[in-house]
């Protein structure tokens, strides 16, 4: 029986090759996308699931409520761990770790003639205690990691770092110097950190050594840093809530917080970290569950759009099969038997599409990895989960796409079927097909609208005025605490004609470095319940970044805090309307340690990504904390300028590694996640449109074929080609319009929600919807016209003969 089905299926499909190809390619495209999205989603859901205690590991975060709004942080003060160990025994094992933003590593050579090799790492240098390995199950190969990091000044290298720093050598026992401060002995080489962890590391250094690097924190309860984090496992059976309350009782005794501010330490499950950008992760990758849902939905939609093609084409094609169905019924085939036959046929097409999509996915995965900066791989045969997914797709698509056509076809009355008298409209399920086409158009339009809006918001990020100049500016880090060495060489730095201006500062205007301080303004009598963002920078800062002053002047050159410049938001917050009024007023910051006069008011500029609002800012000088040299250079002589800057820089810091980043690039990195999402949207909505067009093309060619005779008659009667194209197009125009009416509100709802994440965002203009509508209409009409024109230009006599 099945052999017979199979033979007929293969021969029928081969005979209607065009139809088969449209179906197979459309389905394959849809399944490929869903396959890729499945891989992405599975990867994102797998973060840190490989630790045996994963479901009871937590990180301690802090939620603060300040007058500037809520603030969240994953950092904890140093004494936190000792407190937990002393008072909360159910939080065990517990450990803290420190993550550096970067470091310089020198491979010391034992031979004086060979110069030392230097490397610069920008992230993922992790300081951990031996207890780290009690809590987490990272692969350590044959190394006893607990033992290896027992002593101070030890380091475990990952394989790829070992290969890079010590090519062709055994690094164990060798010495690595970090930041020219501390010598670390290599005690082992461990496998690279898994791709799916939010605690990524290039190397693991003993925790004690971090105190020599992280000199900005002290042992007090009031010194925190988001890179200093505490993790613990909750003992089974104990109450999380109670432990959390108890911890907050204890900390509130030690923590000094401003009146009017509130804070609470909260326990965040390890397995939630990856989906919560509120607190961030050390991998600096998070993806919201909403985005994952959106991706999953897009995957399903793409399969849906492809399946709809299938239903449409198959029911339209049903007429051609009517003779066969009729005869089979005459011979006694039952309806279930015929349904089985047609479902098998769908299954066969789906299977071919599935195999094809596995090949496509294999080919496209590298591009996707590049786009998403991931390293996902898959090998079907060794991946039972994947096989299960594919099987599920096969069954789902076969039933979804095959059931209706099978039902229609198997329901033919035998005599009518033999006479090919089955009513066209009914067979083709015209209203159902219309509905399905509307669904397709709706999905396409929603995707187009979302893509346009996401794209516009991305463009806005790129082009929005941030209140400062970001073009042709390089940010060059300087070793912590040593900015003065390079500042002394400023005349040399600026001696090159391509270097326009230089400024030393804690950070460029928009950066992820914040320093907050309480303050008192003017007569010091009013206790203001908000803190200010301290932007410490030299006197050239405003000039270098072209930030305009509204009143007064920039402060004078100084190594310590003497004079202040504040921003507009600051004035608003303290209730000063006229910038001039603030000039000369006294200001106290840093817990009363620094006092001075306001000498200028600066126009508001953005301090971080456009997700956040501009905080009140107090600017002043403090050479000690300048981490960056910012240089405005001539774009066309950038190379020469950079070489010059490097030269001077290396004179000041001969033991360090020079590196730099263009300011606009570092700003673009604020929006990496959004950019990735935008790319995904673009790619997948494009594919959805392609699949939709394939289906439309097939459907119209079928309609045209069906009406060849009618077109012939009309032409003989004098119809113009245009009116014939119109005949076929009118129907589809209506469908696009219906879809448009549905797609508009749906996409508005979702994109409005998405935009809420950004404090600064575009307005969704009605033109977006019109453009999307027009675009779909254009695509649909083009597809329809190509086919319709063929019918319109065909020779009417030939058309009439073909019956």
């Amino acid at each position: 029986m099945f052999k017979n089905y199979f033979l007929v299926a293969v021969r029928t499909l081969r005979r209607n090759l065009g139809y088969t190809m449209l179906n197979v390619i459309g389905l394959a495209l849809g399944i490929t996308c869903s396959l890729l999205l499945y891989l992405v989603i599975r990867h994102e859901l797998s973060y840190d699931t490989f630790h045996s205690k994963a479901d009871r590991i937590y990180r301690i975060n802090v939620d603060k409520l300040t007058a500037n709004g809520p603030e969240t942080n994953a950092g904890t003060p140093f004494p936190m761990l000792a407190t937990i160990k002393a008072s909360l025994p159910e939080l065990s094992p517990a450990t803290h770790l420190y993550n550096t933003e970067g470091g310089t590593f020198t491979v010391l050579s034992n031979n004086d003639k060979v110069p030392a090799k230097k490397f610069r790492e920008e992230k993922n240098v992790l300081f951990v205690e031996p207890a780290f390995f009690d809590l987490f199950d990272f692969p350590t190969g044959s190394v006893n990691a607990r033992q290896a990091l027992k002593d101070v000044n030890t380091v475990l290298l990952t394989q790829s770092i070992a290969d890079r720093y010590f090519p062709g050598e055994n690094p164990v026992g060798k010495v690595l110097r970090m930041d020219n401060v501390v010598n670390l002995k290599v005690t082992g080489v461990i496998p690279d950190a898994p791709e799916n962890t939010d605690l990524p590391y290039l190397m693991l250094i003993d925790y004690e050594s971090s105190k020599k690097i992280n000199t900005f924190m002290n042992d007090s309860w009031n010194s925190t840093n988001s890179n200093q984090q505490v993790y613990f496992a909750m003992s089974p059976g104990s109450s999380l809530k109670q432990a959390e309350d108890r911890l907050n009782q204890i900390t509130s005794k030690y923590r000094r917080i401003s009146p009017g501010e509130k804070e609470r330490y909260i326990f965040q499950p390890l397995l939630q970290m990856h989906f919560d950008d509120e607190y961030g992760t050390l991998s600096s990758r998070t993806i919201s569950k909403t985005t994952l849902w959106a991706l999953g939905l897009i995957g399903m939609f793409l399969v849906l759009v492809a399946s709809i093609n299938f239903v449409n084409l198959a029911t339209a094609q049903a007429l051609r099969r009517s003779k066969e169905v009729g005869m089979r019924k005459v011979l006694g085939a039952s309806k279930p038997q015929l349904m089985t036959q047609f479902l098998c046929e769908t299954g066969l097409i789906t299977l071919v599409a599935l195999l094809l999509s596995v090949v496509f996915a294999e080919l496209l995965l590298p591009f996707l990895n590049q786009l998403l900066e991931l390293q996902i791989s898959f090998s079907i045969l060794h991946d039972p989960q994947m096989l299960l997914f594919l099987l599920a797709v096969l069954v789902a698509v076969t039933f979804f796409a095959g059931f209706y056509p099978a039902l229609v076809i198997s329901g033919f009355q035998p005599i009518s079927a033999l006479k090919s008298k089955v009513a066209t409209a009914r067979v083709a399920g015209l209203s159902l097909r219309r509905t399905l086409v509307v669904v397709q158009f709706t999905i396409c339009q929603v995707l187009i609208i979302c893509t346009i809006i996401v794209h516009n918001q991305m463009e806005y990020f790129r082009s929005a005025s941030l209140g400062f100049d970001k073009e042709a500016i390089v940010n060059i880090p300087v070793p912590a605490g040593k900015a003065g060495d390079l500042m002394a060489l400023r005349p040399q730095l600026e001696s090159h004609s391509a270097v326009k201006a230089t400024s030393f500062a804690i950070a460029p205007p928009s950066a992820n470095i914040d320093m907050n301080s309480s303050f008192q303004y003017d007569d010091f009598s009013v206790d203001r319940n908000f803190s200010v963002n301290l932007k410490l920078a030299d006197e050239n800062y405003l000039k270098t970044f072209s930030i305009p002053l509204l009143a007064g002047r920039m402060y004078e050159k100084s190594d310590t805090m003497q004079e202040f410049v504040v921003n507009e938001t600051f004035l608003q917050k303290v209730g000063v309307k006229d910038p001039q009024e603030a000039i000369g007023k006294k200001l106290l910051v840093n817990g009363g340690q620094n006092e001075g006069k306001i000498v200028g008011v600066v126009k508001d500029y953005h301090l971080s990504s456009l997700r956040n609002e501009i905080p009140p800012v107090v600017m002043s000088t403090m050479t000690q904390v300048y981490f960056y040299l910012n240089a405005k250079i001539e774009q066309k002589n950038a190379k020469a300028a950079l070489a010059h800057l490097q030269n001077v820089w290396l004179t000041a810091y001969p033991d360090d590694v020079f590196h730099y980043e263009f300011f606009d690039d570092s700003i673009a990195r604020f929006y990496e996640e959004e950019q990735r999402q935008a790319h995904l949207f673009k790619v997948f909505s494009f594919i959805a449109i392609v699949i939709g067009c394939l289906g439309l093309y097939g459907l119209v060619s079928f309609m045209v074929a069906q009406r060849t005779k009618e077109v012939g008659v009309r032409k003989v009667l004098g119809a113009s080609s245009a009116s014939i194209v119109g005949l076929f197009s009118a129907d589809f125009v209506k469908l696009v319009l219906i879809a448009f009416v549905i797609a508009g509100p749906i996409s508005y709802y979702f994109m409005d929600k998405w935009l809420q994440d950004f404090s600064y965002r575009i307005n969704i203009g009605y033109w977006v919807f019109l453009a999307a509508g027009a675009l779909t209409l254009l695509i649909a009409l083009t597809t329809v016209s190509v086919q319709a024109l063929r019918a319109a230009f065909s020779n009417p006599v030939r058309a009439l003969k073909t019956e």
Partner: protein
Amino acid sequence: MLKTVNLQKKYTTDEVETTALVNVNLQVRQGEFVAIMGPSGCGKSTLLNIIGLLDNPTSGEFYFLDKEISKFSERQRANLRKEHLGFVFQSFNLIDELTVYENVELPLIYLKVGNAERKQRVEQVLEQMQIAHRRNHFPQQLSGGQQQRVAIARAVVSKPKLLLADEPTGNLDSAHGQEVMQLLSSLNEQGTTIVMVTHSPTDADYAHRIVNLFDGQIISENVKELAIL
């Protein structure tokens, strides 16, 4: 074998009612060869389709193998068709995607006949219809006469008690038509009951009895055999 009592068939389409059969009373005995004749549109095919359980009458009774079956469900009728009936159509209705062999094999597959027996029965009937040498050809590669022989082979391979033929020679030239009629005639001699619709008096000559239909009514029956004897 079969008997109809006051059989009526009405078609209703787009509010137009066509009465295709009016009070048809017809009896066919085991082993008979009956020809139904009449002008185009008089209801011959309709009658044959009802007899062939492809269609239900609007009213009246229909006994097939002594069972009243006019109210049978589609599934029950499909089962009876499968086991007891064979059909031959004017337009052959072979399945284009199947070879000669596979077309003939199909009824046995639906009857769930075992592999070996199926092969043997198909080969035998292909021989009998003198079409065995074309067993691997597709229908479009055959002449009309050959196609109709395949269709007859397919109709009789399941050894039906009743063979129904709707203008089996209608699409054939006279030489091929005679060939087909001889095949039917010899099948009848071997015991198969046949009811055939035809326009051609020559073809009708092969039958034992001719039923004349006009406007959905039987207007005369002449039993030829008696005349000859």
